[in-house]
């Protein structure tokens, strides 16, 4: 886990900031230099919607090393109320209770931690409303 990378991503991960194009009004995530619709560089930060719905979900039982301690966990593609889609974990629920179109809210959590350096990567996950 690299401190410069964690620092660089803090606005997207900690504040859930995506971007909005001032020329075509397209909103997208993550941040980029140019609009994904019209290539304009005339962009501002856009705060992602707090709530959304589960499009598809699954349960991860075999996770990568740094996320093994959380497994098994639910994971899904979430469509936020502003139309932006992201991938995220669905927490504070029983897997059996999940279903497509379930309303979820963004929550701030630990994503993974580095056992060697003691660094922690925070970011957003989702929980049923």
């Amino acid at each position, binding site marked *: 886990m690299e401190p410069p990378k964690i620092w660089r991503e803090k606005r997207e991960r900690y504040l859930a900031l995506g971007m909005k194009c001032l020329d075509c009004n397209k909103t997208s995530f*993550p941040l980029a230099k140019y609009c994904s619709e019209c290539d304009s560089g005339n962009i501002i930060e856009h705060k992602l919607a707090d709530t959304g719905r589960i499009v598809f979900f699954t*349960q991860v039982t*075999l996770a990568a*090393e740094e996320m093994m301690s959380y497994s098994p966990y639910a994971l*899904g*593609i979430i469509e936020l109320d502003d139309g932006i889609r992201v*991938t995220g974990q669905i927490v504070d629920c029983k897997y059996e209770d999940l279903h497509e179109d379930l309303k979820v809210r963004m929550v701030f959590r630990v994503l993974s931690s580095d056992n060697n350096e003691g660094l922690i990567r925070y970011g957003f996950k989702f929980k049923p409303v």
Partner: protein
Amino acid sequence: MNNKDIYVIGYGMTKFGEFYNESSSSLASKALFESIKNSNIAKEKVQSVFFGSLVSSTNSQPSIGIACIRENNMSVPVTRLEAGNASGAAAFHQAYSSVLSGLYDCVAVVGIEKLSDYINNETIERILSSTIDFQWEFEMGATLTSLYAILTKAYMKEHNATLEQLAAVPVKNHKNGVHNPYAQFRREISIDRFLKAKRIADPIGRFDPATYCDGSSSVIIASSKFVNEHTDIETKVPILGLGQASDSLALHHRHSLTSLSSTENAVNRAYKIANINAANIGVAEVHDSFPIGEILAIEDLGFFAKGEGAKATENGETAINSKITINPSGGLKARGDPFGATGIAQIVEIVEQMRGNAKERQADNCNYGLTQNVQGTGAMTYVSIFAQNEVKK
């Protein structure tokens, strides 16, 4: 013979499996020499070697190419290409371009991966994280398997497909793999084994994914000028058309989760160059790393209408010598999946089919054969089309 025509003139591969006493360079050098031997040319005639590999291995340097040709006592330009699970096909496409451009007349392509060195499955998931969106899928908790689970759910919902239909893919591929001497798993597996297995990422079961293993595969490709000058060459399988396309890296940015647009765009380009269409293809090797991979492939390549692939597979329409022969080698599922070696192993199988050498696996209709190699969840797809005989374009 058209001056622009380019041929596969030799092929070879190691058995796929777990080889703890072999290094990645020793496996690669074996496959390379096999293909040179098969082409009946002297190794000095090979002007350059292109390697396809995702990680090589723990005990070897990433510049696997130079380590390999040292074992073969060769000193030619080497290039290593990385395109995730499609690294083998990427190297093949690059090698083809080098001959098409006139830079070389005869080059070798080697696909190599040595994965048994990674004894933890969690490490393999970490390696595969490079094939998906690392920041916004992997670091958010996704794995390649979990994303294929989402693709599976999306297809099942859209087309009312069943787990039985999906399980028909690995059942068929293991049946084919019995006859493949290079395959890691040469045994049939009953549909019940798949259906009753523990779910590792709902709805994907324990036995559904292809297994990561060791192996290397190689082909020699040459210009028509070279083929004309070397009369000892026996294998002359024309490369008719190639196509490559890309798509959003992250699934959540895709317009559709029930088809891979990179496959559609790649194959359309390849069909156009080859001047044929899906109906002409008699045999194909497709990327069945998960059952849904093969279902989407046979639809996106144009062999079956959208939503018909799962039913067609259950009805046996993709078995050897049915409507179309899909994965006669056993596919990634039975052959095993050493990432970089898979794309070239697919080509080796199609070349064997074109030459009529596939014995029990032989497809009767093999005027044209196709390979489809996919990176990650379809961010990149490489399609290659081969012909049995020379074709006037």
